[in-house]
Structure formats: structure tokens, C-alpha cells
């Protein structure tokens, strides 16, 4: 089975992200990692392989010059190869342009299953995968907490407000997943060494036949006009008393704040 993982390089969430003078994320200042939710779906694909299925795993990303660093980590975890769409004209692209690019890239790849994260940690809205499925004519199954291919069909558990729904569709299909799929593995030393010889193929917009004027900052559907730092909450009132007295103070505080 051929699986393509949409693996977005994002700034490391533990770093201090900041906006550049153009009010866009300064992606150069922070070391990139693969978006957390995308690592979970990669882990799910690797577990299918661990369970004995014959699985090839291809990473696909659209990113700038920092892309290969993040993709290497996914290759070290066990993905087989990677494709990176990178082009100066892509700078400042919004979700709409990202979908155009990823759809054109997917059209050049062979797959039974596309896996993506439910959303990206760098301000993504959780809309790219649904739009991409629609553009690429793929059944769309989202918010998976488990993923089970079975013959030509895919079955998932979808997280719901009270539990889960069991969904099924024919493959090829696009599935999004998240943390409940299970903790991603750390790359082993052997994995890290092996990743060095795996291929990352870079595609430009010309390779995908996309007009540069249809993507990038100038073609973005939305614009950021201002940014500010919100007011901090005022300092906490601290209680150190023994439990019975602390309990009284909590109730008094909640009444004072008209919270109960």
C-alpha cells in the first residue's frame, strides 16, 4: 500500500515564534520540526508497517529553504522518501494557495491513502486537508483516532463530542488524524543515519505547472493588518493556608467574582 503523508514543516512550538516586519511568521529564526499532528499520522502509518503490512511512506510538504531539515526527521522515523515543493514565489501563501499546490503535487504521485494532520500548530485553521480532498476528488475522513485499511477500503474511528463514530470509505482516500493515534516514535541512531541516503525531491512551481501569480503573498485572500501583544492577566492572588481555610477562600473568591 502506498501512503502519502502531508508533513508541514513548522516552527518548533517550544521556541519563541515571532512575526517579521511583513507581519508574517518569521520562519527563518526558529528551527523547524514536522507539525505535531502530522507526526501522529506518520506514526500511524509506521505502525501499519510494524504490524506486517507492506507499506511505502512518502512525505509531501510545501515549504521554504528550511523544509529539508524538518523532512529529514520524518525520514529518520521511517518514511521512505520525500517531495518538497519550494519556490520563491510561494512566500506568504495562504491556505487557498497551499491547497492548489498540494493538489498539483498529489496529482503527480501514486497513492492509496493520503494522511494529514487535523490542523497545523503555526496558526493553521484545520481547513487545508478538507479542501485538498475536495479538489483532488478523494473521500475525506477526518479527526481519526484510529486508522485501519482493509482491502480496498479504509475504516477509521472519528473523534466525536461524546465518543467516536466509525467511518468507512473506498480508497484512495484522505484521512486526517491527531494525538489519539499514539505517541510518535523517536528516530533511532540507525534511522538517523539511514535518512541521509533517502531522497528528498524538490519541485518548483514550474514542475507543477502552477502560475506563480496565483500563489504567494499578493494572491492571498486575507491580509494581516496589525498585530499586538494582549494585556497580561493581573497577578494571581496566592493562598497558602491549610485545606479547610483554603477551601473557604476559594468559595469566597468565586462569589466575589460572581462566578457562582
Amino acid at each position, binding site marked *: 500500500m502506498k501512503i502519502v503523508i502531508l508533513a508541514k514543516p513548522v516552527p518548533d512550538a517550544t521556541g519563541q515564534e515571532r512575526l517579521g516586519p511583513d507581519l508574517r511568521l518569521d520562519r527563518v529564526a526558529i528551527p523547524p520540526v514536522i507539525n505535531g*499532528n502530522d507526526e501522529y499520522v506518520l506514526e500511524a502509518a509506521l505502525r501499519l508497517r510494524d504490524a506486517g503490512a507492506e507499506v511505502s511512506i512518502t512525505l509531501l510538504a510545501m515549504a521554504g529553504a528550511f523544509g529539508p531539515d524538518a523532512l529529514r526527521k520524518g525520514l529518520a522515523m521511517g518514511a521512505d522518501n520525500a517531495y518538497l515543493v519550494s519556490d520563491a514565489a510561494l512566500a506568504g501563501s495562504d491556505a487557498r494557495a497551499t491547497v492548489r499546490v498540494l493538489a498539483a503535487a498529489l496529482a503527480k504521485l501514486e497513492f492509496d491513502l493520503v494522511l494529514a494532520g487535523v490542523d497545523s500548530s503555526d496558526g493553521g*485553521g484545520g481547513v487545508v486537508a*478538507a479542501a485538498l480532498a475536495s479538489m483532488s476528488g478523494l473521500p475525506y475522513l477526518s479527526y481519526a483516532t484510529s486508522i485501519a485499511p482493509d482491502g480496498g477500503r479504509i475504516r477509521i474511528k472519528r473523534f466525536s463530542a461524546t*465518543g467516536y463514530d466509525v467511518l468507512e470509505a473506498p480508497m484512495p482516500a484522505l484521512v486526517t488524524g491527531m494525538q489519539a493515534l499514539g505517541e510518535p516514535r523517536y528516530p533511532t541512531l540507525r534511522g538517523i543515519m539511514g535518512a541521509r541516503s533517502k531522497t528528498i525531491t524538490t519541485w518548483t512551481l514550474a514542475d507543477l505547472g502552477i502560475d506563480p501569480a496565483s500563489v504567494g503573498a499578493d494572491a492571498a485572500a486575507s491580509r*494581516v493588518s496589525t498585530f499586538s501583544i494582549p494585556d497580561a*492577566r493581573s497577578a494571581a492572588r496566592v493562598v*497558602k493556608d491549610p485545606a479547610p481555610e483554603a477551601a473557604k477562600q476559594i468559595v469566597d473568591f468565586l462569589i466575589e467574582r460572581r462566578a*457562582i
Partner: protein
Amino acid sequence: MPGTLWAIAEAGPDGHLTKLSAEVATLVRGLGAAAGRDVAGVVVGTPDAVAALAGELAAYLPRVVAVEAAAAATSPIAALAAQGALQAMGADPNASIFMGNFPDGRDTAGLLMAALGVGVISNAGGVTWNSGPVAEKGVFGGRLVTTSSFADGHGIVTVPLGSVPAEAAASAGVVETIVLVGAAPAVTVLERVSEAAGAVQIEEAKVIVSGGRGVGGPEGFAILDSLAEALGGAVGASRAAVDAGWIPYSRQVGQTGKIVKPEVYIALGISGAVQHKVGMQGAHTIVAVNTDPDAPIAEFADLFVIGNLFEVVPALVAELAARKA
């Protein structure tokens, strides 16, 4: 032609309009008044259920389109909601479309983005009008706030819980009913499993009593249940507690869980990691109980109790009972 402002609504697990949908509808009505635009709502559901839902939505909006979709019984709602919204809206090239920033709303937004070729502003906590929607949103876990707008004045906006209080209109709107047309959905729902039937959902709760690694195990959560009951609230959790298997994932608060905005959030044995903080920092009042005086949550709690939750929680339950008596 100035476009209509549309609210796409959804039903909660109890079959009623969600609080979030009521808020989105209220927001859209207010924007319509500010912009001098028509406003309308869409709701898609099974022929049995959609009329009642549309009636609930019409409390907030002057016009509601109820879309009957028999397939809603056996397939995910987002694809049908997107298709139904397109059918209800007809040709309306300058329309702006609003929906909740929950899973089904986000899926619907993505599908509509592809169908209409417009942009999306996601998770817009504060929306105003200036020749189009202007959205203020927190980014990087709320460490920064940005203002965005659409280059051509219209698009799709997903709205988080608690951006405006839900408020019914002076008079109820009219409901039109249409029947969804289109190909059968590719995805089938085989089964719907409820793990927490009857339990108060955290998104809707006014009070959330949330436990972390400090709760120590599933037995610890039984103590939290008694506090939640005393306060009429719901039990939430940090990821550490969910990963440990002490409580279902549907209770997780945070970046990869649920974003909540209750009146009161009581964090018990939760350190306050940034991924947890982004899910609950919108709470009106935050109370934390932690044995560690240096826990990061001390920096954004309103009341910080240095103490052992296994002593403080029972004392709190007793105190609440004593005051009630």
C-alpha cells in the same frame, strides 16, 4: 451586489442547536446590522430532525434555510453541510460565511473554500465590520493578537466558542425548507459510539473542574466528579491524564484537545504547559491548586492555591455543601 452574511449551524450530541452555533448566529446578526447586509442561516440534517433545529436557529436570525438531507443519518455532516450551504446560498458571489471553529465547522469551511475559491480566516475570536469582516485573533497560543481582513471583502470565517454571548432576536425568523440534491456521499458512518452519555460536555459547561497528572489515577478523577457535581460543572483534563488513560480523550483541554471558555476553570494538579494554556486561557476565572509554588500556571491563574488537591478538593466539596445548607 452586496453579499448576504450566512451562518452555518450544527446540532450538538443532544440534537439541539449548539451554544457555539447560537453565538455564531448572534454574531452574524450583529454584523449584518452594522454592515447593512442581509443575514441568513443554514442548517442541514435528516428530514426528521432538521425542522426543529431550524426553528431553534430562527430564534437568532430573520431567515433560515432548513436543508433536508436523508444521508445525514449515515454519513458525516460536514460534506452535506457544505453541499447544503451551496444550494441554499445560490449564486451569491460576495457572500461571507461564518461557522463554528469545531471539527465539523472546520471541515465545512475547508470544503467550501475549495468549492468557492475564497479565503478562510480561522479561529477569529473578535469579528467586526469595515467594508467586510475584520477579524481579531490570537496566534501562538494567544501570545500575539493579529487583525486580518479579506483582500476582496468577503470569505469564510470560523469562530471559536465564546466570541459573543448568544442572544435571541426580538422576533423569530422565517424558515424555508429545501431538499438536498447531489451525489451520494463517499463516506459512510457505520456506527456512532457514545462513551460519556449523559455527562456534561466540557464545551458547554459554565464550570470546568480539570485534572492533570497530579490527580494520580482514575480514582482521583472520582474526587473531581464530586466537585464538578457540587458546582454543576463538567470534568476536563490535561493531556498527561488522558495519555495515562485515566479519562477519555473527549475531555482533553488544550492545543490538541478542546478550546474551552467557561466562567470558572479549576485546574487541579495541572502544571500549566503552554499547550494546555491555549485551551483554557479564555476562562473568565481560573483557580489552580498545585503543590508546587513555581508551577507555570501560577502566572495565569486568578487564584493560586499552594496545596495538595487530595486535601483541598474534599474540603472544597464540604465547604460548598455547608454554605448551601
